[in-house]
């Protein structure tokens, strides 16, 4: 029977061409929308790697002329140390640590190294103190976290994410290994000071600083020295964990205390929970808008489809009457109308899938996994096919109302 529908549809392809194109374009539109949804959804369910509740970020604006002035850096570090102490003094603050790559913020401090195979690895490079783990509740899965005294070792201990460990070392144990970069000729980069060697001491599950919707995988934490201007520069941001239920009075109080320590510096205190909400809203709004738009368009296509099918049925009353005379039941005739449009839809879906899959095949949007494209295709198909069937229900019913005796009476 399906072969019969296929023959009918195929032989009428000129008339059906436009409808096919309409369904095809609708399918692609849906694929785009569902693609974004799938991308966000897949990322959402990956572990965030940190706990944002009751965490605040403190951004510090340090006016300075140059960055290379060791003296200035030393002074800034000393001030920073006093700032940390001030933070700890506040009764509402449980723990605090310097942290350059604060969650949900746009700024990123990254380092890139070229691996032996020539590919580039870009990772978040975050100097922090041992307390950093407590503030963000990072999950340690192997080795150890940073410890006091780490900032003075003859190498730089690094705690990296699982994905980074896998990328660098495959299945081998990363603990104790060093992170080595290569130049574009495949030669290992030379390291100027011995303490600059990056050695892995621990692995955390993840640190997705850009939030639940982004696919960030590579991050490394290493020690922040609050006294050595050679090894570290002064922190420009901190993260603080506060007692639950802390209110606005805390902000005013803390900001006053910080400004007392460093009158020339500017401070900005933000609640991570609020930042997260704003971030989520910013990401979801365009998606909602796009989705609504797509919905309207598909609705319009659906209505058009009903009209076209309706008109199709009225034009084919004789054929339908004939089929009843030859033994088709009313349901068979209804199923034919619906079946024909479903066959047409499947053809459109097939073409659309081939087109859509060109995107990953051509390497466009390479940061998106193939799973996203496949999910988009599946989701769109699961929406379009029932939708088309629904559009065919009324015309299908109309087809069953054809009286064979009258339809075949052709004056």
């Amino acid at each position: 029977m399906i072969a019969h529908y296929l023959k009918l549809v195929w032989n009428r392809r000129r008339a059906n061409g436009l409808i096919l194109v309409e369904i095809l374009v609708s399918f692609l539109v849906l694929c785009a929308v569902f693609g974004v949804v799938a991308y966000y959804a897949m990322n959402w369910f990956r572990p965030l790697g940190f706990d944002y509740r009751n965490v605040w970020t403190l951004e510090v604006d340090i006016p300075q002329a140059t960055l290379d002035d060791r003296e200035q850096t030393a002074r800034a570090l000393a001030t920073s140390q006093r700032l940390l102490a001030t933070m700890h003094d506040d009764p509402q603050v449980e723990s605090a640590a310097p942290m350059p790559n604060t969650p949900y913020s746009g700024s990123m401090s990254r380092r890139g190294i070229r691996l032996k195979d020539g590919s580039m690895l870009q990772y978040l490079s975050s100097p922090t103190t041992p307390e950093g783990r407590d503030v963000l509740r990072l999950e340690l899965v192997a080795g150890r976290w940073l410890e006091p005294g780490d900032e003075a070792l003859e190498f730089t201990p690094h705690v990296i994410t699982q994905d980074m460990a896998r990328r660098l070392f495959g299945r081998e144990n990363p603990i104790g290994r060093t992170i080595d970069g290569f130049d574009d000729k495949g030669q290992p980069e030379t390291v100027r000071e011995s303490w600059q060697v990056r050695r892995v001491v621990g692995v955390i599950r993840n640190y997705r600083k850009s939030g639940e919707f982004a696919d960030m995988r590579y991050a490394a934490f290493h020690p922040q020295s609050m006294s050595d201007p050679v090894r570290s520069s002064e922190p420009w941001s901190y993260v603080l964990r506060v007692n639950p239920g802390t209110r606005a009075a805390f902000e005013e109080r803390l900001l006053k205390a910080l400004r007392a320590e460093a009158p020339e510096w500017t401070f900005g205190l933000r609640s991570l929970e609020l930042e997260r909400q704003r971030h989520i809203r910013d990401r979801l709004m365009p998606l909602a808008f796009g989705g609504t738009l797509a919905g309207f368009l598909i609705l319009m296509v659906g209505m058009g489809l009903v009209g076209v099918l309706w008109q199709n049925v009225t034009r084919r009353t004789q054929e339908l009457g004939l089929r009843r005379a030859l033994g088709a039941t009313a349901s068979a005739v209804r199923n034919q109308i619906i079946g024909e449009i479903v066959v047409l839809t499947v053809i459109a879906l097939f073409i659309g899938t081939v087109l859509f899959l060109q995107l990953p095949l051509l390497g466009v949007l390479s940061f998106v996994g193939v799973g996203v494209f496949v999910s988009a295709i599946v989701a769109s198909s699961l929406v379009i096919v029932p939708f088309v069937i629904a559009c065919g229900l009324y015309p299908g019913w109309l087809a069953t109302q054809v009286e064979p005796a009258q339809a075949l009476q052709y004056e």
Partner: protein
Amino acid sequence: MLTNYLKLAYKVLLRRKFFTFVSLFGTSVTLLVLMIASAMLDHTFAPLPPEVRLDRTLHVTYMAMRGEGNEWSGSPGYGFLDRYCRGIPHVERMSVFTGAHGASSFVGGEKVVSQLRHTDAEYWSILDFDFVAGQAYGESEVADGSHVAVISEAAARNLFGDRAAVGQSFETRGQTFRVIGVVRNVPRMRETAFADIWVPVTTLPSDVWKTGLMGDFNAMLLADSPRNFRAIRAEFAARLPHVVMTEPDRYKTMSGSPRTRLEDIAADAIGTKDDMPQTGLFIGVLVLLALLFMLLPAINLVNMNISRIFERVPEIGVRKAFGASTGHLVGQFIVENIVLAVLGGAIGFLLSLWALQLINGSGLITNADFQVNPRIFLYGLGLSVFFGVLSGAYPAWRMARLDPVEALRGGHR
């Protein structure tokens, strides 16, 4: 004759309510989205107050320092802008200012967050703000580092309630400012003008920001004419190799260029190539998206028209048998299409008025003041009428040429 067509069109459209509804729905929704999109585009790129001179303004918003595998990219510093960007030929005026950042004030125990921007005096001469009270600060206040502020109506309400704001003082970021002017709220989409509080750049809590190559500053270069943009950019590029790098071990070169608003947005949206915004690509992508979006309603319309025509084949046969010519029939059909397009356009217009009001009121985009652009509306309407006519003419002509006998028989496939 035309009234005949119209009367008939009215009857026909009423008779087939479903088709009429679908066509109207499609046209009005398409126009609605077109209106909203173009209103937003308009408000992003057009010179609207306070950015009245946007079409002859270039912005320096993004620079990059590179060297030895290190990169620092972002907004330039005051040091770079002040030392290397002044005195470019064809630049009438230049202003240097910071970005707008959240600054908290505590009023009666409650936290009030306002967007705070530090600017020089020239800022007020390039942008045209609508002062409802007081005035802006000038050269002397900036030179003195006076702690004066211009605030928006919204900030005035948040900080002072119903009292007159001019003359009052408020505290933010640990500093006290005295209000000397109040302006009407600025929509968020006016990138350089938007803020709640404006204060002199010299009130930044230390002097050291003056020397940085990178920092939190932008510059507006008001050109005497857009034709001289190229010369300005060339001069800018010529000066870059002469920049004295402050950390020559780490960063060796500086790159970047003054941009128009369009280039800024293109760079934000799809990134840059060699630090240059890919404006052409950006526009190309937008046009492609617009075309794709309009494809569906267009095909739908053509489909509808073909269906409608087929449906009326017997009617055509009868009419021809009674003497109607091909021209008559095609004309009739086209009039119907035009009526549909105009009606759909009218509905779309009303819908977009309502929708834009909704967006303005929702606060999703701060201080949004989207209006329906009459020019774009007329384009959209014209487009839909044109397309309605086009999509109907060919099938109508084919069918109208039918032999009446055949048409009476039900038409050939």
